[in-house]
């Protein structure tokens, strides 16, 4: 196991936390420790959590801190090698062959210029400039998960026409999962793991103040209290952090146009709850929840 104590000048979880804050991401102790360990141990980082707790944002912030470009592979049911690894550019190969045929030349049609890189191959070939984000892996099929397992242990893929391609240093890989299904034990074992919770009220307020422009502290506090209350309701889709930020912004905008406070929150409720059933469920009690949040 190749251990690196210092990565781009960061040699402890605290320093990583500060660097992430400079990149506008507030990480807690647990996340910064897990992320630092993943970088130092050269292991992939697996982030799990409910939708909207900032898993993808965390990956983007880490890429920013490392100064690397983010290669994002969005998983979906049926994601395959052509979408994840590489594809040959057949039309270009064909044109090149015809052209060469007309002049009587020979040509190697398996050169780089005919290879279309997809995120996983790109990350293997330039491991020090890129960071791979494999997003929502719980949506992919089991076979893709098994294939990923192989990729994450060797960091090597083979292209039949070209032979094996191996990364000359371990790339940084972050995986996220919404936990709509459980991942294979073997995949969890390969990774450094972190479960992202909804943030504490105090931290969520700092996130809103940092992310939203021109939101007053009072409005932010009310939003955090109301959102915290909503997350305890049996809703189909619980409001995430992004929704909380948007709600604070939307209500502030309405307020500036002359809407009174509780009314501004109530009218911009569509930013937080985006499901008809949820809105119907919460409608009778929304006044009480907002009043309580404003107190």
């Amino acid at each position, binding site marked *: 196991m190749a251990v690196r104590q210092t990565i781009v000048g960061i040699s402890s979880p605290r320093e990583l936390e500060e660097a992430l804050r400079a990149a506008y991401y507030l990480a807690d102790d647990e996340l910064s420790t897990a992320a630092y360990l993943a970088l130092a141990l050269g292991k992939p980082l697996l982030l799990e959590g409910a939708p909207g707790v900032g898993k993808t944002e965390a990956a983007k912030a880490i890429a920013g801190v490392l100064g690397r470009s983010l290669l994002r592979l969005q998983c979906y049911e049926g994601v395959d090698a052509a979408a994840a690894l590489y594809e040959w550019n*057949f039309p270009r190969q064909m044109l090149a062959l015809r052209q060469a045929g007309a002049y009587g030349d020979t040509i190697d049609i398996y050169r780089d210029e005919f290879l279309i890189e997809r995120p996983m191959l790109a990350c293997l070939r330039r491991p020090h400039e890129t960071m791979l984000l494999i997003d929502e892996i719980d949506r992919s099929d089991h076979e893709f998960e098994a294939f990923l397992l192989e990729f994450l242990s060797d960091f090597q893929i083979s292209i039949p026409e070209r032979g094996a391609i191996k990364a000359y240093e371990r790339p940084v890989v972050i995986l996220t999962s919404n936990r709509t299904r459980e991942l294979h034990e073997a995949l969890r074992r390969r990774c450094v793991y972190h479960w992202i919770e909804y943030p504490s009220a105090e931290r969520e307020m700092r996130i809103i103040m940092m992310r939203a422009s021109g939101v007053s502290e009072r409005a932010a506090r009310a939003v955090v209290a109301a959102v915290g209350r909503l997350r305890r309701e049996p809703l189909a889709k619980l409001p995430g952090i992004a929704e909380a930020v948007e709600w604070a912004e939307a209500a502030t905008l309405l307020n500036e146009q002359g809407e009174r406070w509780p009314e501004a929150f109530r009218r911009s409720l569509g930013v937080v709850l985006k499901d008809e059933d949820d809105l119907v469920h919460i409608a009778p009690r929304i006044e009480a929840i907002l009043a309580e949040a404003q107190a």
Partner: protein
Amino acid sequence: MTETTATIAHFLGFTALLRRSGFAVAPEQSMAWLTAIELLGPGEIGDIRRAARATLAPPPERFGDFDALFDAHFLGSIVPGLEGEQSDEEPLRAAEDGAIGPEPEFGDETHDSGAEAASAERLLARRFSAGEDTQTLRRFARALPSRVPRRRGYRWRSARTGTGADARRMFRDAMRHAGEFVKLRRRRRRLRQRRIVVLIDVSGSMKERTQAHLAFAHALARAADAVEVFTMGTRLTRITRPLRLKSREQALATASLLVADWDGGTRIGDALNAFLAVPRFAALVHGAVLLVLSDGLERGDPTAMADAVARFSRIAWRIVWLTPLAADPGFEPRTAGLVAARPYLDELGDGGSIEKICAHVLDLAEVSAA
């Protein structure tokens, strides 16, 4: 030197404790944890705990247990809940269907005395005869191959009518014809059968049905490719292998020798948890159909059963629970266990007769086509 060895032994003692408490910890994870501790330097206990969480990756539902064990090991506090649970009852074990029976003494007994054996634990061996329902099962076996639930596989194959053009093949063909495209080739995803995992309740309350259920499981195992069958009562037994035998009499007789807990009590929650605790078994359920033939009369803790079913619902494709009690049209689950598990079931249906069970299985493919 000896001091560091002692320290490492203390840390490894924690991973051993975790394993004893049902957490899966791989050696590479222990290694990563030790490296992480070294990396973070001598600091506070919080660092060690965070490193443990990150590298040993306990599942989120068990963070509470994990922290309690951590405190017990490193801070010396007592964990009342965990210790009490363990001493309470003998933990339920999963039995394999290898050459040796689940309990050595039980196996010896059967070999010595023939077929009949009884012990103080009411472990009974039972003999089966091929009974009625033969016609139904024969029809079921004929209908099944075209109607098993399938899922889309990872690989493509060329097909006459496909969802996309097979560019790779077309260009290869074109090179053979001096760069001319002669024919449009298509491809589609290969289909694979979803595994069907059957759990048969063999407790006393299901006594009259177990024979028919085993006969059904035999027909299913013969007709479909990927089928796994387990019985559960006071213990969990895998009987897939004997059920693959062609002759039903022989299959059922061999299977019945493996099962040691006929007509005993029911600890469904414990049986399901024992199933999940064996990673190899749990892997069988990934993306599979879980078919439970049980009345759901749980003697043990209903929350254990609900938790286990909730975990199954996250790894299985569908959970179908068929209970003979649902033969009554006005049926509503009334037992605490089944009520608690109901939200996680994809289907709670009538398992009152073999025809009904067969019909449910044949209908699974309708769902998968959608």
